């Protein structure tokens, strides 16, 4: 049992982030925010004609042209599905890893664009909405979201999540709020 419980500071005396349940709320906020953004981004690309999405990806000349039609087809669906799974808290751990991988790829792509000096008018991140973001803005935004994914990936919770439904209180270990519950995954 040693080491199974940590961050057990007394409530009322400890900073808010050390109180029991605080990390759970952070994970919920991170899931809703990042999942929501991904669903939004994927849907706005799906709303555009395929050729438009291809043209937006082709702006990133570092991506081989042969791959752009495939990316334009697959990426919006991956964004929508991984974002939705994260949002509703279903298969949260794999969804979180998939979202984190996408964010890491986008950050890397923006870094390459910035270093290479490739001129991108509109990142194409939110397709149909036409919100124009520069590569630097995208990089900063994605870094923040990647940071938000850390507690989700490392301390997955069932709070406000489909993954937590049907779990009887007896099934959960005592003091589960602040323990890693990877082993509760099916």
């Amino acid at each position, binding site marked *: 049992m040693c080491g199974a419980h940590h961050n057990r500071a007394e409530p009322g005396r400890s900073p808010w982030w050390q109180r029991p349940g605080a990390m759970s709320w952070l994970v919920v906020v991170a899931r809703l925010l990042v999942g929501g953004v991904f669903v939004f981004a994927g849907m706005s690309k799906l709303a555009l*004609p395929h*050729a438009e999405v*291809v*043209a937006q990806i082709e702006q990133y000349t570092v991506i081989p042209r042969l791959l752009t039609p495939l990316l334009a087809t697959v990426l919006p669906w991956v964004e929508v599905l991984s974002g939705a799974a994260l949002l509703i808290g279903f298969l949260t751990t794999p969804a979180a890893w998939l979202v984190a991988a996408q964010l890491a790829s986008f950050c890397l792509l923006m870094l390459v664009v910035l270093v290479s000096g490739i001129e991108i008018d509109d990142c194409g991140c939110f397709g*149909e909405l*036409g919100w124009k973001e520069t590569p630097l803005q995208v990089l900063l935004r994605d870094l923040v979201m990647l940071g938000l994914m850390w507690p989700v990936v490392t301390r997955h919770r069932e709070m406000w999540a489909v993954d937590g439904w049907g779990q009887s209180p007896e099934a959960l270990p005592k003091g589960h709020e602040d323990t890693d519950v990877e082993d509760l995954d099916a």
Partner: protein
Amino acid sequence: MERALKRYEKDVQLVLYPFALNHRSEIAVQVALCAGEQGKFWDVHQMLYKQQARWSKASKTLDSLLQYSGELGLDREALAACVDSGKMKPLVKADQDYARSLQVRSTPTLFVNNQRIVGAQPEAEIVRTIRQELARVRRTPQPG
């Protein structure tokens, strides 16, 4: 594009929809349409592309365009009066609305019948699409 049109001149019709994405471009489109009243639309259309680097950076876009149009033999005063009257603005707006209704987000965008081609593509790509569409239309039984 020019060569593709020449190659298939009996089977292809090109329809131009100037889609102004910014204020400078709106002025340029109005100048081109007004030049059409003097029978010189296509001359001005070509000039706008050839001199794009210069007039698009000029501090007074209209003055710059009037100067270039004058060199093509157009009546500058009539052209200026036409643009100032704003009579071409509804046409410019109608084309912008039409483009948006087709979800055109960037230029150039071509529709070869229903096939969308976005961005400056190699001529071979355009020719390939034209040939595909011609083959498809010839296979489809025509009404009447």
